[in-house]
């Protein structure tokens, strides 16, 4: 992050203005952390806003099946992102430190929450496209590929944020962590299945254990 960023004396006070700041000045959170300003309220606003964005994206994906699945997917999508981030949190911290990043608690919180925020903001930006395709196709395989592609776009923006947030981390280590994060997201999605399509009178969360590759191959059949 560029050290020359001027941080507003007063941090944004609402969720929307905080998310707006994350998009326009992604390094503002880092500047505040460096200056020793409290970042707790900022992090809560970004994280809360991210969950709402993910819920909106989830609701959009639920339009493929329609009905109750809109609400169910709206609940599951933020859970998938939050749970995946939680599982991958220790590895990002250790990878960052071993790569030589001077990670304080504040800087790490800004990095992780900012990454999730960037991901969620791009997802919500893709919401109209997702909704359009969700309501206009009946092919489950197509929407699975669509969501994979949109997820890839969001992760690419998240990666860009991480690269700038942790310049000390070698690109290979960052790529490794991102691959881990994606694989974990896929498995959490499988754990919480069905997300896109649910047979009538079947439970909201399917029983039985399944590996994500098997789940995808079932969905793409």
């Amino acid at each position: 992050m560029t050290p020359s960023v001027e941080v507003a004396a007063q941090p944004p006070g609402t969720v929307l203005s905080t998310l707006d700041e994350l998009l326009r000045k992604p390094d503002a959170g880092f500047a505040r952390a460096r200056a020793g300003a409290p970042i707790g309220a900022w992090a809560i606003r970004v994280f809360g806003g991210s969950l709402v964005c993910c819920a909106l994206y989830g609701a959009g994906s639920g339009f493929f099946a329609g009905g109750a699945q809109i609400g169910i997917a709206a609940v599951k999508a933020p859970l998938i992102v939050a749970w995946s981030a939680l599982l991958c949190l220790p590895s990002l911290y250790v990878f960052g430190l071993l790569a030589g990043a001077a990670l304080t608690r504040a800087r790490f919180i800004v990095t992780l929450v900012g990454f999730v925020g960037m991901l969620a903001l791009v997802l919500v930006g893709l919401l109209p496209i997702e909704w359009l395709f969700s309501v206009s196709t009946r092919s489950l395989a197509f929407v699975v590929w669509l969501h994979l592609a949109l997820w890839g776009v969001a992760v690419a923006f998240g990666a860009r944020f991480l690269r700038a947030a942790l310049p000390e981390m070698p690109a290979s280590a960052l790529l490794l962590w991102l691959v881990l994060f994606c694989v974990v997201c896929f498995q959490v999605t499988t754990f919480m299945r069905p997300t896109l399509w649910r047979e009538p009178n079947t439970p909201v969360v399917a029983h039985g254990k399944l590996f994500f590759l098997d789940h995808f191959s079932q969905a793409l059949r």
Partner: protein
Amino acid sequence: MTAMLAHLLHRRDHLLTHILGRQPLGRTLADLTLLMTICAACYGAVLGIWHGTRLAAYDAVKLPLVLVLTSSFTVVFSWVAALALSLPLRFAQVAVLTFLALATASVVLLSLAPIAWFFTLCAPAPSAATRTTHNALYLMHTGFVAACGMAGTRALWQGLCRLEQPRSVVRRVYLLWVLGYALVGGEVAWALRPFVGSVSPRYPVVFLREDALEGNVYEFIGRDIVPHLWSRRRH
């Protein structure tokens, strides 16, 4: 132990300066061993949990044992190789650098434990029908251990680079040490199997297999794996 963890993660430069100085290193070695043992034990428990708590408990003992035995078997060679290649290191320094690499690898392993645990949680219970799951878990754990081993040797490389010696000498010593760890580590892990556990009823959960010291991993690769792959290629 938490102090050593903080040193390893936040003040590695300071730790390396201490190791490569002239101070006694007994306390540092003890702290690194304790850190490595606890981190490896936690990951070991996750490694074995697919087959239940008994194998998890066994692996919590066996994984740290693999690391301790590997370093014990290689430390003399590492010291001799360093001296022979004109790298002036005390025996204690070689031992502590070895344990520094292993402790670093163990800390990275521990950071991956939540992910490994979650994938194990999502895996169908072991049975004859879950061979693919077994192989996938095996591959995941092998990949994690190998990647963490590489991260550990990076710490070793950083330590060796601090010695004011030609880079070619440092590189040769580093390669020899890593080769020694890989060669011995593979065999020790093979002798202490099972870790993930087998899906075949012929191999129940045990601490050590009866044939633990009959043959070695490299014989197994040469005698079973390579001919199997070769025959598949020819058909």
